[in-house]
């Protein structure tokens, strides 16, 4: 690893995509960032508003038919190199919405998923571990 990639590893910016989630995982993501006990900023993370600033993308939700095109378009807007983390059981298998008429997931049919964090919703500790793993993968891609 050269100097730039060693430095970059310490600054992963996170972006959240809600692919039709019930909001449970989004609340856990907010908890992960915003309360003192699980502060992800200590890993150098920062939630950013624009997909163009992001390095690690956190996808929640089972990918409904309605949001599929929008999710794929937002995903395209994230500059390379990027890492995808599927948060919660929904993007992995569909969860309780599995085999519903309005679901086109699982998400790895459309996006390359690097880390799966199962749970309904996953605990903040699990999310932080998933982000830490994503940082390792991301460092290898710089």
């Amino acid at each position, binding site marked *: 690893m050269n100097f*730039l*990639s060693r*430095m*970059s590893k*310490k*600054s992963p*910016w996170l972006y959240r995509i809600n692919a039709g989630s019930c909001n449970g995982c989004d609340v856990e993501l907010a908890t992960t960032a915003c309360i*003192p006990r699980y*502060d992800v*900023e*200590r890993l*150098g993370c*920062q939630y*950013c*508003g*624009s997909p*163009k*600033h992001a*390095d690690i993308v956190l996808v929640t939700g089972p990918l409904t038919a309605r949001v599929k095109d929008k999710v794929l378009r937002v995903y395209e*807007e994230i*500059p*390379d*190199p990027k890492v995808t983390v599927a948060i919660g059981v929904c993007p992995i298998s569909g969860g309780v919405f599995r085999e519903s008429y309005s679901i086109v997931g699982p998400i790895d049919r459309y996006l390359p998923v690097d880390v799966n964090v199962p749970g309904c919703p996953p605990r903040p500790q699990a999310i932080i571990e998933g982000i830490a793993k994503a940082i390792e993968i991301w460092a290898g891609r*710089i």
Partner: protein
Amino acid sequence: MTDSLVQTLSVLFAAVVFPGGIFAITLGLALKGFDRRVFARLQRRVGAPLLQPFYDVLKLMTKRTLVPENANLVVFLMVPLLGLASMGVAAAMIPIPGLYDPSPAFGDLLVLFYLLSVPAVMLMLAGSASGSPFGGIGFSREMAIMLAYEGPILLVIVSVALKTGAALGQPICLSLSEIVRYQQAHGAYLFDPWMWPAVLTYIAFIPANLGISPFDIPEAESEVLEGPLIEYSGVALGLLKLTSAVKSVVVIGLGIVLFFPNGPEGLFGLVVFALKCLVITVCGVSVLRAAVGRMRIDQAVIFYLKWPELLGIASLALVAMNL
């Protein structure tokens, strides 16, 4: 011939290495790191490492730079460069008391005043050139708040220039070096009760110019997704971050020069200057940012047109009475 060459080279050195350019970038990013750390501690979080802004900028240098389809390519990519260049020159115009005296070739306080508004104009251009509706909203908000805070800061600058000029027997003194020299000989303006309205106005000006809560309205990340910066990525975004870091050094440094430049000679003066910057960053930026929420744009404009403007006029009147 050689004299002018030496002068050109020294001006270039001042703008690119010290105290503009590299030095100002380092100091600005370090101040930002401290600010983030103090902010996190005020929220009882651990917070990012002190060097986090350096990591962020280095990371952005490795990322791909995307240009939106409906953006104006030339303006979109020129804006970060122009912003950083103007701030590099502005930082070279700030004297560091006891160590650095800017060359007269840089111009005086009025040039610095104009340079200070360049990054805001560049941010507006960035917002409008990106072709994003959020960028457009950021553009109009930045313009509104800029019109509101430019008046008070001009009043402050004129007050200080008039007061120093009267003391030196000139109509007006626009040279920053002379303002520093006068205060080092006769005591800082910070301890002169007649100048307190001007000090207060300057303190109110800092958060609006640096885009800090409660006046981070143009770049509100939770409403307009960082406004003008929304479409930027990679190196261009890194340059914009560097611009804002240097801008914080320029704005805080100008405050120090106008009101409290006293410090020891030599390298120790640099340490004192950096410590003053740090104190202002912690008290005027981090604590304020942690304590208040964001204003609406109309509230912010009315606030600036009311209180800092009044204080600015009051300070000018007080200076005029004492002439």
